[in-house]
């Protein structure tokens, strides 16, 4: 395990490449989720993935993170294989908190090895405060509301020193105010050390505000890339009103609305 937490400098050397992969779940093998599917997500950029429910977004993330292996084809991502020195931080579609640990411990656990006990605690508390759970650090997951659990999971994903961040609908189940805060928070954190990020969402506004590359997957299996939009506006200070945004919004609405 590498101790150095990569910074922008060498981040450029990373990126995510799916090369002509195919994948099907054993018990639904008849219709594969992906077939001869290729995709490149540039390093040090935020790639947003949109697509109808059930099209394969979560599967895609699991393939990238290495939880699933493609039936054929080849996937490259920093920290995908156990033994390479990179690290991937994953935000699952469900909070996935350990029921038997307080929210704080839940975060410390993933940090310990990299930051040591003391810093883990500091970091955990720092990020929990950022997501507005400052006064709930000692609660057990069962004692939190749905959205609070989701935020705890977000704190964990952000706190973990990774080269690549994969997020599966991170801001679902959150109210507007929080969504906005967290979107800003993410941008703020992201510009510090531009880590390669993949962001699955259903919210077109999020896609516009966060995405450098926006991929829209097709419904039905196998999934394909329906559309690939690039947005070169600088992250900080993006608005939904800029005409790039409005123009992108139109295109996305046409595809998804």
């Amino acid at each position, binding site marked *: 395990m590498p101790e150095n937490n990569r910074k922008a400098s060498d981040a450029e050397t990373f990126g995510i490449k799916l090369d002509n992969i195919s994948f099907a779940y054993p018990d639904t093998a008849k219709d594969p989720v992906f077939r001869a599917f290729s995709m490149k997500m540039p390093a040090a950029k935020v790639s947003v993935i949109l697509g109808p429910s059930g099209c394969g977004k979560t599967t895609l993330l699991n393939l990238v993170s*290495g*939880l699933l292996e493609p039936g054929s084809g080849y996937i490259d991502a920093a920290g995908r294989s*156990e033994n390479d020195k990179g690290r991937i931080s994953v935000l*699952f579609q469900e909070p996935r908190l350990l*029921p038997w640990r307080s929210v704080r411990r839940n975060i410390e656990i993933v940090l*310990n*090895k990299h930051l040591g006990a003391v810093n883990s605690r500091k970091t955990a508390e720092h990020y929990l405060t950022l997501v507005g759970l400052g006064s709930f650090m000692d609660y057990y997951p069962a004692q939190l509301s749905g959205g609070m659990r989701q935020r705890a999971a977000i704190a964990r994903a952000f706190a973990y020193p990774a080269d690549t961040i994969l997020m599966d609908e991170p801001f679902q189940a959150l109210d507007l105010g929080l969504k906005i805060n967290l979107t800003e928070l993410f941008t703020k954190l992201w510009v510090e050390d531009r880590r390669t990020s993949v962001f699955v969402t259903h919210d077109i506004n999020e896609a516009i505000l966060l995405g450098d590359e926006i991929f829209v997957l097709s419904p039905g299996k196998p999934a394909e890339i329906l559309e690939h939009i690039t947005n070169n506006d600088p992250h900080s200070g993006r608005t939904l009103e800029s005409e790039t945004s409005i123009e992108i919004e139109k295109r996305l609405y046409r595809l998804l609305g």
Partner: protein
Amino acid sequence: MKVFTSKTEKRIIGFLSAAGFLFIWKFVSIHIGTDIILPAPETVFLRLLSIMIDSGFWLAVGATVLRTAYGLIISFVLGFAAGIGCGSSSKIDALLSPIISITRTVPVMSIILLAMIWFSTDIVPVFVCVLMIFPILTANVKQGVKGVDRKLVELGVSYRLSRTEVFREITVPSVMPFILGGLRSAIGVGWKVVIAAEVLSQPVRAVGTGLQFSQMNLETAEVMAWTVVAVILSWLSEFLLDLLIKRRKWEPADA
């Protein structure tokens, strides 16, 4: 949904059912009429007092307690290790299961002689106890390991927790209820087996030997007195275990 019952209410009910049991005992004993078969509760109680005075009694009890403790601890360690192993690697499972199922299935009767040849009569009961308990615990733990939430394990894997961390933070807590459940019942069996084995191998100092001796002499009251001792012993042990179980925080275990 669970009906809430107050501690005192529970106590009362428990007391009643215990009283009911004693009453039935008394009734049956009157009905049977002879002490050789079923003496009355009070007779047994008096006899209990009289044997408790004897110093040999306490030594015997001590010895049996030690045997059971050893037996359970060894079984626990073995069962835990084997269970984790079998649950998490089908290779290990395939390797161990024949041996385990043999130990599980060989009748005590057949094993006890070899036990006597290998160990001193003092240890034979421990051996038999392990032979009986360890497979139960293994099965329980294995069950538990197979039941660990895959999603949490995935979490551990993606965040690159070391095997030991995944084990300590995810496997153990998920398996705990199974282990404790297993242990809870194992303890009861443990006492039974140890005492039974003591009756067969008759160490100098043992509750089982006491049982056997008084049975030889048709002192049923004394047999029952020893029985009461055994019952109290395992109640104590279960009580202690329950304290242990209670001490576990991480209670709100859903979400």
